[in-house]
């Protein structure tokens, strides 16, 4: 981010304002949330303004732009513990700096184009905040200016649930969007992002989540333990096939699997830390050999998966990152303090990272030396770690009321 040049007329005014300790408000207004760390008196100059701010004061406030998204662009959604208004923060995943923010309605589902060309959310608002007429819509934002570039009305049918990233997703070509409907019967809504219009609802079997494998096909996970493949036309007419069940009835697959659309690789842990790799890249579901993240001994010591978004996958290295900790059974939504890194093909453990914090959600950047993003809902804080050494690189706090979901750009 850059601060614009000054003019002499207003210099004095701004200097006075700055000395009065309110300049940070200007910056917050222009650039989203800054790391304001004013003391209780409000009189201190915010330290992050640095020498430049005190010597080269802005005179003309402008609306800033974020830089173009790169591999370290991160979107963090705060469902705010089921509040009717929510936020999604645009974050620079290098240093955790908040670049911008969009407002959302109830239990928004964030999404981001794989090429970085847009991001957005499926959202729901009501005419009287939390009551009155319901209105569901898809809004698409410019990732630099954070201006709305499309607002697409959809039927009032979104699945209102604690945010699962794969309940709303763009297609590989970024031209369409698919969203899940739970009631009264499972359906998937098809939205034409390119032409900014809702297309149709697609009837699907008793299946959940949406993993696009092509621009006209996606997979879902069904109640009977199978994967359904849904191939659809531009008009939304679909053909559906179902695989054989690939896991047992007593193996509970978590709500927030990791999926690399570019690799067609789905990584799906159970509560007990068994990973089911499913390769969708061929257009058919190929079930890899499941492996256990925890050793027999660790399982006896009550090591289990836990968190909101406890798994991440790095495409090029095939590394699977899984949040785990020692915990009682049925505490699988509690945060964890460790990440276990395994190879998706061999199942072999590569390393174990001590996060040092209670972490609810993780993500990794898809570049060569990936960043490991660790989000604490309780602390409302993002920790950025080196995914190899586990060393903490940076952190950002004040991320809303209860941030839970991260979408890392899949560049």
């Amino acid at each position: 981010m850059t601060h614009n040049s000054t003019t002499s007329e207003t210099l004095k005014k701004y200097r006075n304002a700055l000395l009065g300790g309110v300049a940070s408000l200007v910056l917050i207004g222009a650039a989203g949330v800054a790391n304001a760390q004013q003391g209780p008196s409000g009189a201190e100059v915010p330290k992050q303004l640095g020498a430049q701010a005190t010597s080269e004061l802005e005179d003309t406030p402008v609306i800033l732009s974020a830089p173009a998204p790169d591999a370290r662009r991160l979107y963090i959604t705060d469902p705010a513990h089921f509040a009717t208004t929510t936020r999604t923060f645009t974050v620079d995943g290098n240093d955790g700096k908040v670049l911008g923010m969009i407002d959302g309605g109830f239990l928004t589902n964030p999404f981001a184009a794989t090429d970085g060309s847009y991001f957005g959310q499926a959202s729901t608002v009501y005419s009287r905040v939390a009551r009155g007429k319901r209105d569901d819509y898809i809004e698409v934002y410019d990732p630099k200016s954070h201006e709305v570039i499309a607002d697409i009305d959809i039927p009032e049918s979104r699945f209102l649930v604690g945010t699962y990233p794969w309940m709303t997703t763009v297609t590989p070509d970024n031209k369409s969007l698919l969203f899940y409907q739970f009631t009264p019967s499972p359906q998937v809504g098809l939205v034409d992002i390119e032409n900014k219009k809702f297309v149709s609802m697609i009837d699907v079997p008793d299946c959940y989540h949406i993993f696009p494998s092509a621009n006209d096909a996606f997979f879902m996970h069904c109640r009977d333990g199978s994967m359904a493949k849904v191939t659809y036309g531009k008009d939304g007419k679909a053909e559906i096939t179902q695989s054989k069940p690939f896991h047992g009835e007593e193996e509970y697959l978590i709500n927030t699997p990791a999926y690399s659309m570019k690799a067609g690789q789905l990584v799906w842990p159970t509560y007990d830390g068994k990973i089911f790799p499913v390769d969708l890249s061929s257009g058919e579901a190929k079930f890899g050999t499941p492996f256990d993240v925890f050793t027999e001994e660790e399982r006896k010591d009550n090591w289990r998966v836990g968190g909101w978004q406890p798994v991440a996958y790095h495409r090029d290295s095939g590394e699977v990152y899984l949040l785990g900790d020692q915990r009682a059974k049925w505490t699988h939504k509690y945060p964890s303090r460790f990440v276990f890194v395994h190879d998706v093909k061999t199942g072999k453990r590569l390393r174990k990272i001590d996060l040092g914090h209670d972490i609810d959600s993780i993500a990794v950047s898809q570049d060569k030396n990936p960043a490991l993003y660790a989000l604490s809902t309780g602390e409302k804080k993002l920790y950025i770690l080196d995914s190899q050494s586990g060393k903490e690189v940076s952190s950002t706090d004040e991320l809303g009321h209860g941030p839970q979901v991260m979408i890392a750009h899949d560049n």
Partner: protein
Amino acid sequence: MKAETVARGGAEQNNWKRRIGVIILPALAVLTAPLFLNVPTSASQNVQLKPIEQLGARLFFDTNLSKNRTQSCATCHNPEYAFTDPRESAAGRAVSMGDEAGAMGDRNTPTLMYSHMTPPLTKHENGKITGGLFWDGRADNLQEQAKGPMLNPLEMNMPDGASVAERIRENADYAVLFKQLFGDDVFSDPEKVFDAAAQALAAYQSTAEFSPFDSKYDRVLRGEEKFTSLEDFGRQVFLTWNCQLCHRPIRSGGDLSTELFTSFEYHNIGLPVNPKARELSGKGSDYVDTGLNSGTHVADPAQAGKFKVATLRNVAVTGPYMHNGVFDKLRTSIEFYNKYTSLQPAAQINPETGKPWGDAEVPENLSTFQLKTGLALSDYRIKALEAFLRTLTDKRYEHLMPEMGQ
């Protein structure tokens, strides 16, 4: 048809003798007998019957209490069929044939199992009406209810209570028993005899034979057996879907072991007329069965079209279903509810007819909240619900269960 009915009546007599033969004792023996006798009333259990219950049992199986002596309570409430009517008429088993040739009812004969646990018709402060016997709740208790069929021209067809008393007086055994149980002057007033007979019938229907609580569901609760995965899923669906809004008790206060799977409330679920049964009943095409509002006991038009929520115990063996027997299969009865929630066009079709379900006989007063709130049932959940409902079948009727979906 009459000959056939008589023949069935004969078979039934034999059946009755076989079932309660042991209690037909010489009058003197009854007079001097201890109050409790071991009476094998079913293959699975011995039930101790008090004298009044024994008398009720005899009356229950006695065809002399119908005008042409062709049918008893047990003719339509056959104990071998969970006290429902297994006889096929021109309308299948939807409605029952009466004592008079050609006489047909307009409502399905319900099970008597667990009926003695039905509370009396009660109007609550919140406007809800619960309890009562018959599909429309017009009788407060079994004693009151017992008189209905004896005097109904479409059923046992006796002209009045006095003629029932006369039939009872014909039987010397009865005379002794009635005096023993109801006093020496019981025959001084025919209405007293009629009342006493109804009382004895109610006593019999209140015995443990009618509420054994020995279904698989009960056995699972007692830890003796386990649900299959499908049954357990069905139970979960039942307890979390809209079913439990009506088919759950307000009575037991959470005591699952005496759960009857009814709130005893009245609801209009928008059922269509059963055309064949209606035609045979002779009530005419203009007739509307307004349920709770059809008699004089509830005058409120806001109750029109509502029927009592039936117990689901033994539901798998007591088809056809609903107050008019309109659906042959249990599965169809479950699928009917999808009419209100599913977006699928197929959900508007009765799978038994291949045609739309048909307009509600009474389109007003639908239980919209209970029917339209929430989710459609997937095929698997329908199957699971059926599997669960089958576990509510008492042990001695388990052999009657048709295959799933049949």
